[in-house]
C-alpha cells in the first residue's frame, strides 16, 4: 500500500463532504479544534466583558441581571464547551492513535458522532444564550435554578448532551488504548500523555452518567415539580449539590489530567532527558483519577452537609495533593541537568508548572474546613480555580497546540511571536488573577455585580491584566492563522522527540504510518537516542539490539 509522496490526511480529498463524513481521527480532532477554539473565543469575550464591567463599582456596561447571565455563560461555555473537550477530544483525538502506533481509534463512527453531538450541545447552549440566558452560574444550584425564569432548561440540556459527547470520547479512548496498541507497545512503553488520557477517560465514563441523571432530575424538578430538591415538598436541595459535585469534582481532573500529560511530553522533549520516575507519573495519573471521586464534598463545607461528611471530605482532599506533587517533583527532576531549550511549547510548560503550583497550593488551603469557611464564595476561590483551570489546563492546552502544530498542519509558526504571546499571557494572567487572591482574602464575594469602593484599585488592576491576557491571545491568533497559509514547511520531527507521532510524516498520511513504526525504544530514551534530520541515531554507536528492560 504505497501512498504517493506529499499526499496526507489534509489534502487527499479537500471536498466539504469528505470532512463532514470523515471517520479519520485526525480530521475529527481538527474539527474539534475549530469547535473548541470558537468556544474559547466566545467564552473569552464574556470574560473580558465581565472584567470591563468590574473596572469600576456600580452599573457601567450592563445591568445586574445581564451580568449574572454573563458569568453563567462564561462558566458554562468555558467548562462544558471548551476545557472538557479541549485536550482529550481535540488534541487527544489527533495524537492518541499516532502515539500508540494505531491506524485510528477503536470506534471511528462513534468518534464522529461525538463531534456532532458536541455541535448539538453547542446549539442548545447558543439557543439558551439567545432565549434569555440562564443566570444560575454554571453549577445550576437548586432551589434558585428551579425557580428562576431564565432559560435554565435549554442550558441544562446542553450540558446533558455534551455529556454524551464526552462519554463517547472516553469509551473510544479506553477501547483504543486497551486493544489497538501497536505490537510491542506495552503499557509501560506508552507515552505519559496516553496514561493521562487513559485516566481522564476513566473519569469521563464513571462520572459523566451521574451528571446526566442529575440534570434530568433537575429538568423534571423544574418542569414538573417532582419535589425531590424542594424542601417545601420534603425534598432536599443539598442532595442536588452532592449529585452535581459527584460529577463536577472529578470533572476538574477531566480538565487537568490531560494537561499534565502534555506537560510530561513537553518537559521530556525539551529537556532531552529521560523522564524521571516514569512509572510514578503514570501511576499518579491513575491515583488522581481514583481519589478525585472521594473528595467532592469539599465544595459543600458551607452548604449544610453533616460535620462528619465535611471532616471526611476535608481529610481526603489533602490526598489529592500527593500524586499532583509527585508529578511536579518528577518534572523538576527531569529538567535537572537536562539540555533544556526554551522554545515556545517549553515556555508554556514552565508557565504551567509555576501557575499550577500556585493553583494547587491554594487548593490545599481551601480543602481545610476552617480556612474554607472564610474563603468560601470569595474571589479567593475564583482565583484558585482559574490558576488550576486556566493556568493549568488552558496553558497546557496551548503548550500542546504549539508542540503538535507542525504535526497537525505540516507548517511552523513564527517562534518570536509565539514567545511574545506566551510571555504576555503569563504576565496578564498573573495580573488578572493573583490580584483576585488578595481581593478574596479581603472578603470580596464572587459573582457580585457591585462592590465597595475600597476594592476598586485591585479590581481595576485585575481588569488591566485581562487586557494584557487578551492581547497575548490576539497575537497568538494572528501568527497561528498566518502559519496555516504562509508558515514554513515543518520537518517530520522539529523538536527531536522520540514518541511515535514524530516518526511519521508531517502532516501524517490517512493511515498514520506507511509502515509499522519502529518500537525498539522507550518513548523517553534520550540517553540512548537522538534525532538528526528527522532520523533516529543511536548514541555511542550502540548496536540495534532490542532492549529488554522496561523502565
Amino acid at each position, binding site marked *: 500500500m504505497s501512498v504517493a509522496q506529499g499526499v496526507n490526511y489534509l489534502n487527499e480529498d479537500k471536498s466539504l463532504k469528505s470532512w463532514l463524513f470523515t471517520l479519520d481521527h485526525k480530521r475529527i480532532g481538527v474539527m474539534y479544534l475549530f469547535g473548541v477554539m470558537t468556544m474559547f473565543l466566545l467564552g473569552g469575550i464574556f470574560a473580558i466583558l465581565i472584567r470591563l464591567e468590574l473596572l469600576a463599582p456600580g452599573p457601567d456596561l450592563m445591568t445586574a441581571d445581564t451580568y449574572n447571565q454573563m458569568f453563567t455563560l462564561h462558566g458554562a461555555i468555558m467548562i462544558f464547551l471548551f476545557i472538557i473537550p479541549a485536550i482529550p477530544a481535540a488534541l487527544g483525538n489527533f495524537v492518541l492513535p499516532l502515539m500508540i502506533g494505531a491506524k485510528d481509534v477503536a470506534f471511528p463512527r462513534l468518534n464522529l458522532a461525538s463531534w456532532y453531538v458536541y455541535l448539538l450541545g453547542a446549539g442548545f447552549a447558543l439557543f439558551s444564550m439567545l432565549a434569555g440566558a440562564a443566570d444560575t452560574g454554571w453549577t445550576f444550584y437548586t432551589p434558585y435554578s428551579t425557580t428562576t425564569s431564565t432559560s435554565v432548561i435549554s442550558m441544562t440540556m446542553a450540558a446533558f448532551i455534551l455529556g454524551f459527547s464526552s462519554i463517547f470520547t472516553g469509551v473510544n479512548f479506553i477501547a483504543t488504548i*486497551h486493544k489497538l496498541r501497536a505490537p510491542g507497545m506495552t503499557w509501560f512503553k506508552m507515552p505519559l500523555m496516553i496514561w493521562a488520557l487513559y485516566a481522564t477517560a476513566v473519569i469521563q465514563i*464513571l462520572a459523566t452518567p*451521574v451528571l446526566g441523571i442529575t440534570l434530568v432530575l433537575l429538568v423534571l424538578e423544574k418542569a414538573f415539580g417532582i419535589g425531590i430538591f424542594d*424542601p*417545601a*415538598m*420534603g425534598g*432536599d436541595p*443539598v*442532595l442536588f449539590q*452532592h449529585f452535581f459535585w*459527584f460529577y463536577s469534582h472529578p470533572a476538574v481532573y477531566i480538565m487537568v489530567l490531560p494537561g499534565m500529560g502534555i506537560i510530561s511530553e513537553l518537559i521530556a522533549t525539551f529537556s532531552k532527558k529521560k523522564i524521571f520516575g516514569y512509572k510514578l507519573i503514570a501511576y499518579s495519573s491513575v491515583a488522581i483519577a481514583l481519589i478525585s*471521586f*472521594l473528595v*467532592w*464534598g469539599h465544595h*459543600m463545607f458551607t452548604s*449544610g*452537609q*453533616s*460535620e*462528619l*461528611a465535611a471532616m*471526611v*471530605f476535608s481529610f481526603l482532599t489533602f490526598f489529592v495533593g500527593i500524586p499532583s506533587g509527585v508529578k511536579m517533583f518528577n518534572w523538576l527532576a527531569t529538567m535537572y541537568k537536562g539540555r533544556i531549550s526554551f522554545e515556545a511549547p517549553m515556555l508554556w510548560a514552565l508557565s504551567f508548572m509555576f501557575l499550577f503550583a500556585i493553583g494547587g497550593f491554594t487548593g490545599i488551603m481551601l480543602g481545610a474546613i476552617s480556612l474554607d469557611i472564610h474563603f468560601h464564595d470569595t474571589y479567593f476561590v475564583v482565583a484558585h480555580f482559574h490558576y488550576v483551570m486556566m493556568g493549568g489546563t488552558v496553558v497546557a492546552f496551548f503548550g500542546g497546540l504549539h508542540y503538535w502544530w507542525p504535526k497537525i498542519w505540516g507548517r511552523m509558526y513564527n517562534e518570536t511571536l509565539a514567545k511574545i504571546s506566551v510571555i504576555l499571557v503569563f504576565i496578564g494572567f498573573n495580573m488578572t488573577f493573583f490580584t483576585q487572591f488578595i481581593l478574596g482574602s479581603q472578603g470580596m464575594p464572587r459573582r457580585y455585580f457591585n462592590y465597595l469602593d475600597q476594592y476598586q484599585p485591585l479590581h481595576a488592576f485585575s481588569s488591566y491584566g485581562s487586557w494584557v491576557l487578551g492581547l497575548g491571545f490576539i497575537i497568538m491568533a494572528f501568527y497561528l492563522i498566518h502559519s496555516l497559509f504562509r508558515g514554513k514547511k515543518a520537518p517530520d520531527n522539529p523538536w527531536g522527540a522520540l514518541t511515535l507521532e514524530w516518526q511519521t510524516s508531517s502532516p501524517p498520511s490517512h493511515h498514520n504510518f506507511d509502515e509499522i513504526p519502529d518500537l525498539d525504544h522507550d518513548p523517553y530514551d534520550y540517553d540512548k537516542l537522538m534525532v538528526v534530520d528527522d532520523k533516529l541515531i543511536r548514541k555511542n554507536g550502540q548496536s540495534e539490539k532490542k532492549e529488554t528492560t522496561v523502565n
Partner: protein
Amino acid sequence: MSEHTQSNHHILPLKVYLGIAGALFVLTIITVAVSFFHFGELNIIVALLIAATKGTLVALYFMHLKYDNKLYMTIFVLSLIFLAIFLGFTMLDTNFRGEIDVSEGPPIDQNAIIYEQQK
C-alpha cells in the same frame, strides 16, 4: 496474531441457560413470598441478597462474564464500587446531619409541608 474468529468463543450448553432461568424464577418466587412476612430490618437485607444473587447469575451466565476476558468483570465490578462510593459518601452527610455540632433541629425539617400542595 492468528486469524481467530468469533466461532472459537465459548458456547454454553442449552441446559445451562434453562437452569439459570429456572433458578431466577425460583428466586423470584422466594423473594415475593418472603416479602409477606415482616422481619423489620431483615426484610430489605433478604430482598437485596436475593436480588444480588439473581443479578450475579445474569451477569455470570447470560452476560458470559464467567467465561469472558476478566477485564469485563473488572469493569462491571468497578461500576458497582463507584456506585457504593457515591451512595456511601452521600449518606455520610444525609444520615449524620446535626450529630456532632448538635443544632436546635435538623437543618431541613424532613416532615415539613411549608406550603399546601397545589391541586
